[in-house]
């Protein structure tokens, strides 16, 4: 009996392997073979070549670029719990379509965009990145979402010298000079910690503060930077609570913090924990000043809070809010609204800052590709590492993109403090924009800078 099973099993195995081989193909080649790397390397000056370690690159510098197309790839959650992030892509897809249709693409190259679903799992992101580079033959990766997800791919991408542009996370890790081919986008979460601390020091120097943060590096970025920033002042931390990503009901933690009756609370929360926490605070007698993570501020999240729960929450932004009438006559905003509607279809939510972020990232990518000296990976990377007051998409006029190769890889360091006004339905600016140019690395606590 077992013998018969075994031969059946062998046959079945062989059949399945044959199927896989047919579907995936072989394609293993022994060496890199001829590529255009020498020519491209010659065009890069020595300092850049060294920083980008061009002599040890595995990949082909012009892969993904044909006479009239350029192929860009991304991996992000398109199914499962985190698929809400997929809405970012509606913004940049619309921008790419607009550029392809009306501007003839990037210097005559139509943008071909390929994306794969990773369900927010770093293991799948790793496989996807390899597929995109090796099977799909993309030129660069763009806006890959998730800190752990990017950590899973940045080593390989660096070895193969594939640009990993404008990752969709605000972790301070992306400033690492040992991975020159990865560059972030979001203003670092640690900047928020510093900003909120500074605000309190100025406006209520003897305030007591409580924290509710997610139990991981994201949440820790807020707490650690804040604490670092209040050293030597009279601000006192009187309560700290954490919650697990999976369990968004934070009412017990809030009850605990409410008992401290702190003057202010910093919410290092994201996704659905944002509205539930705001509701929980609203349900108590506690009335603190609420600082909330920039990731919570979109209408899709704040909109879920009870009436009154989100009133007056303070956060930061680097984007123009589509609902804010002060931008009604702004050219960039008008372009976003008009072309976003035209190329994004009837379902695109142009009031949503998540979509505005996507649009802006798309614009930044196109700007980078257009202004690179040539469409090769080293040249594009060099451009991304040397952005000089670039305004793209609907970024705030006071929040241009700035990077400086070898010194500062953080591109969005000018932030604006803002406060939510429920009656108006948008956020009002508090004070002047704050310029942290070049300071993110200094401000972030040591252990957050290395994975």
């Amino acid at each position, binding site marked *: 009996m077992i013998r018969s099973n075994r031969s059946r099993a062998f046959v079945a195995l062989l059949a399945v392997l044959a199927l896989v081989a047919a579907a995936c193909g072989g394609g293993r080649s022994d060496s890199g073979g001829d590529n255009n790397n020498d020519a491209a390397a010659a065009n890069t000056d020595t300092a850049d070549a060294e920083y980008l370690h061009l002599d040890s690159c595995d990949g082909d510098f012009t892969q993904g670029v044909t006479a009239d197309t350029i192929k860009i790839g991304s991996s992000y959650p398109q199914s499962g719990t985190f698929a809400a992030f997929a809405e970012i892509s509606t913004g940049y897809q619309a921008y790419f379509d607009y550029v392809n249709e009306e501007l003839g693409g990037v210097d005559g190259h139509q943008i071909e965009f390929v994306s794969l679903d990773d369900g927010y799992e770093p293991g799948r992101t790793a496989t996807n990145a390899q597929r995109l580079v090796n099977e799909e033959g993309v030129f660069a990766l763009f806006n890959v979402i998730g800190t752990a997800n990017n950590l899973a791919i940045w080593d390989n991408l660096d070895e193969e010298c594939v640009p990993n542009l404008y990752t969709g996370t605000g972790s301070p890790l992306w400033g690492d000079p040992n991975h020159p081919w990865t560059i972030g986008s979001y203003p670092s979460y640690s900047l928020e910690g510093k900003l909120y601390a500074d605000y309190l020091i100025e406006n209520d120097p003897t305030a007591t503060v409580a924290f509710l943060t997610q139990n991981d590096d994201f949440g820790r970025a807020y707490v650690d930077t804040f604490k670092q920033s209040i050293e030597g002042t009279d601000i006192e931390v009187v309560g700290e609570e954490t919650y*697990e990503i*999976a369990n968004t009901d934070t009412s*017990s933690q809030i009850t605990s913090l409410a008992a401290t009756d702190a003057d202010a609370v910093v919410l290092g929360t994201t996704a659905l924990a944002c509205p539930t926490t705001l509701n929980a605070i609203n349900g108590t007698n506690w009335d603190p000043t609420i600082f909330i993570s920039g990731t919570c501020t979109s209408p899709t*999240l704040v909109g879920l809070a009870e009436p009154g729960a989100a009133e007056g929450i303070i956060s930061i932004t680097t984007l123009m809010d589509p609902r804010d009438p002060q931008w009604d006559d702004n050219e960039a905003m008008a372009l976003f609204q008009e072309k976003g509607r035209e190329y994004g279809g009837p379902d695109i939510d142009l009031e949503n800052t998540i979509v505005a972020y996507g649009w802006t990232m798309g614009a930044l990518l196109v700007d980078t590709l257009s202004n690179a000296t040539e469409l090769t990976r080293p040249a594009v990377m060099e451009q991304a590492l040397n952005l000089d007051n670039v305004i793209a998409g609907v970024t705030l006029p006071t929040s241009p993109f700035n990077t400086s190769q070898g010194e500062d890889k953080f591109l969005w360091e000018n932030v604006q403090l803002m406060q939510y006004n429920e009656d108006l339905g948008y956020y009002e600016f508090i004070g002047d924009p704050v310029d942290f140019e070049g300071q993110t690395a200094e401000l972030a606590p040591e252990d957050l800078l290395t994975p």
Partner: protein
Amino acid sequence: MELFFNQVINGIQQGAIYAALALALVLIFRSNSLLNFAQGEMAMFSTFIAWILADNGFPVVFAILAAMAVSVVGGAIIERTLIRPVGSDNVLAIVIVTIGIFIATNALAGWIYGTDGRVFPRIFANESLVTFGDVTVTQETTGIIAILLVVVGLLYLLFQHTKVGLAMRAVSSNAESAQLVGIRVGRILMLGWGLAAALGALAGSLAAPQLNLSLNLMQGLLIYAFAAATLGGFDSPLGAVVGGLIVGVTQTLAGQYIDFFDGFELGSAFLLILVVLLVRPQGLFGRAVVTRV
């Protein structure tokens, strides 16, 4: 001291929701003798149906009742097409099938309804009903518990004082004998699933205002609900409610006062399940099962 009472109230508030889902789990176990790992996801799916109705102008209570009615049908169909063919003896197959339903329902909900969270309209206001100093008991919590107790009462009436209930008890006790005395076993099994699905819809609709309706609604609750059902006794609806409240209070207090469980409250629920199954498997209110060898 005030913090203690506040946390107890918090625990009751969360426990009421565990109790609601536990009721559905208990009903399925009582009538069909199996654990349905997909109960939460089915409940979430039904809650979305209620949300759609409410969003289109129907009054909340009507929407919920309508969703419950749809769930009865849905549950019955699932039993007939997916569960019955597997047979009640093949435990592994039952586990796999219910897990498969879990995955498929969750993914289907994601595909149909999208992944954004939604606000679910409240039946009871999130305002205080009674206040002792700084400690508030909300209308919502009291309302949920009241509804659950009414359901428990109705289930009691069903099982003890109706022919249908008697038939259900007969089927779960000994399906073959029940068939021999003329009970339509198939119909009864379908009814069991249908009723449980309806209770799941109710549970979801009661939980959603507080937790916001999303794909994740029930996933964080499932283990707690199982703990509640285990503690109360898998064949006792009253046990489910009492168990739910106890589990709720236990996990909040454990998280507050025991360092180990701070941020790890699920561990306390797991410990509870383990202890009950080892020490008193029938739970607080269940009947001890004696297996003849």
